[in-house]
């Protein structure tokens, strides 16, 4: 694994096009990104790459984004350090409440606006505690 991938942002979206658009947006702003297309792949990459930040789509076949979020938070070593951003509109109060209970830190409304995404990524990366 090269040095840039070590701090790469993990993008999880079952829709290939969406995932690639987010990746391109991130790369256009100088961030490295890796992509997973479902929950299991996301967990595998989470385990091996230990991304500082995860951008998680909610609606996925198999494990939903919420389930993946909960699983990541339960990870004994990296679960508390990682920042988790949901890619969804948390329009209702109850959506926000369940996002908080699930362990999400932030959200970006779809369709994703480049400016919103960049702001969101920057403010979350700023809170990442440096790994020993």
């Amino acid at each position, binding site marked *: 694994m090269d040095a840039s991938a070590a701090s790469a942002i993990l993008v999880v979206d079952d829709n290939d096009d969406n995932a690639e658009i987010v990746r391109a947006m991130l790369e256009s702003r100088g961030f490295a990104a890796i992509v997973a297309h479902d929950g299991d792949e996301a967990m595998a990459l989470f*385990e091996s790459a230990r991304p500082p930040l995860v951008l998680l789509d909610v609606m996925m076949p198999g494990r939903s984004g919420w389930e993946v979020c909960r699983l990541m938070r339960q990870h*004994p070593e990296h679960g508390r350090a990682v920042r988790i951003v949901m890619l969804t509109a948390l329009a209702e109060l109850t959506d*926000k409440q369940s996002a908080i209970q699930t362990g999400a*830190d932030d959200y970006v409304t779809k369709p994703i606006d480049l400016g919103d995404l960049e702001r969101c990524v920057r403010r979350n990366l700023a809170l990442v505690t440096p790994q020993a």
Partner: protein
Amino acid sequence: MTPGPRAFLLSDGTDDALAEAAEMLQLDVVAVHPAALLPAAIDAHPSARAIVVATDDPVVLRAIVERAGVRHIPVIFAGTNDVAYRRAIEFRVDDWYLAPGSPIEIAWRIRSALARVSAQGNGAGHHLERTEYEELLYDTLTGMPTLPVVLERTRGLIKDRGEVLVFYLNFVRYSKIEEIYGWEKLDQVLETTAGAVREFLDANALGTMRMMVGFANDDDFIFFQIPDKNQPAPSDRQITEIGRQLQLFVGNRLEEAHGEDVSSLFDIYIGSSHVYYTPKIRFERLIYRGIREAANAARSVEQRERGRRVTALKQVLHDGALYIEFHPIVLAETGVIFGYEALARGVPRSLRSPEVMFEVAAEADLVWELSRLCRDRALAGAKELLHGNQLLFVNIDPHDFADPGFGELGSVDPHRVVLEITERTAIKDYPKFRERLRTFRERGFRFAVDDAGSGYAGLGSIANLEPDFIKLDISLINSIDTNFIKQNLVETMVGFAKEQGAMVIAEGIERAEELETVKRIGVPLVQGFLLHRPERAGVAAGAHAARA
């Protein structure tokens, strides 16, 4: 992880999940069909590290386990049901999972089996890095070893001494901490608890050999004591005393770190059992049976304690043995005290927490009586306390409105009193409830919705109560500085409150960063340990009189 030469995982059948799991562990899968060929394959592959088998043919399974045992290679059984799994356990497989499993789970099973084999003192697992074993052997939150590790370490000693004492520590109401403060807080509290338990046991001369087990994602701990050869095992009475001291010790540590509200919320119940070694019964079964007995004993201690608490509460009500603490609510910008929230605490330590006290009262059908006593005391204390325009916030239960004596305030002006109703209680008959609120409002009382935003009620229900104050749920304030969803939600609540003509109160402020964040969002009123601790003003005179 440094990429080394690839090692092998042998399996009698492979699927995508297993292949993925192996990939995570950097192992190559070698499929061996049929399973009967596996024992020979073990010998043929010197760099085999682990074996995953699905066969439940007892003859084949026994041969595989024996062969693998000689080479110190763990066998992981992929079972499709409980019966198959139990049979596999009888044949001493090292671990198992329910097939089809997810790659992550399979990887974890293989890893933990590898770790255990390695813990037995041979180098079969050296392919994986040391830190990864430690993740599995020790609960990362508490730093305590897990059960498989302890069993391996103590097996020889227990056989040698012939007996072991199993203590089961049941921690009650930790889930309540999560419910009230959120999961971040619970993690911190568990860390403090584990540290305190370790410290207590280190200082306590219980014997020569102690081992502690922590369960990840659970509230309970198990603790083994292997008595010294020349020392008698502690009696039941001594064990009870140890339990009492432990509860006190952990309670004090929690109070220092997290305040009395948290420390008085929980209890520890300790059960113990004595396990005598016999070669006729498998070691693991002996230990698990001992754990079950100790857990049952802990549960019966809990039931006894519940009964005792009801008695204690009746005594409190009879003697008026409770006192009020007043927790200041201040203006966020200036720090000026705006009002006080009255918190009732029982004089007996076991009833110190208002939550626990009301829980016991609900069990014993004494809620009205307790409410009445708390209110009287709060109002009596408030007379000396309130200056200028300061308000008194009193927690009430919607059922209190049905109490004919409710609303008698002695000489306190209703305009100085804010009644807090929690969002968590279900209000069944809204029109009737609103009518009741109206009559109280006409007399000058004001209302606050407590725990708002906790998810029990929507904004519509809150608006229905036409509150003067909206108190945000503590879980929204805890770590709000690093959680942007919480910030967004609180912004929504502040906007909503403005529309309703209500003021928002953020309670549970413990860190300067939390205070800064809620101020930036525009929350006008704040409350929390960072600003003030609850004050015990004018210790209830009645309590002394009644006890004298």
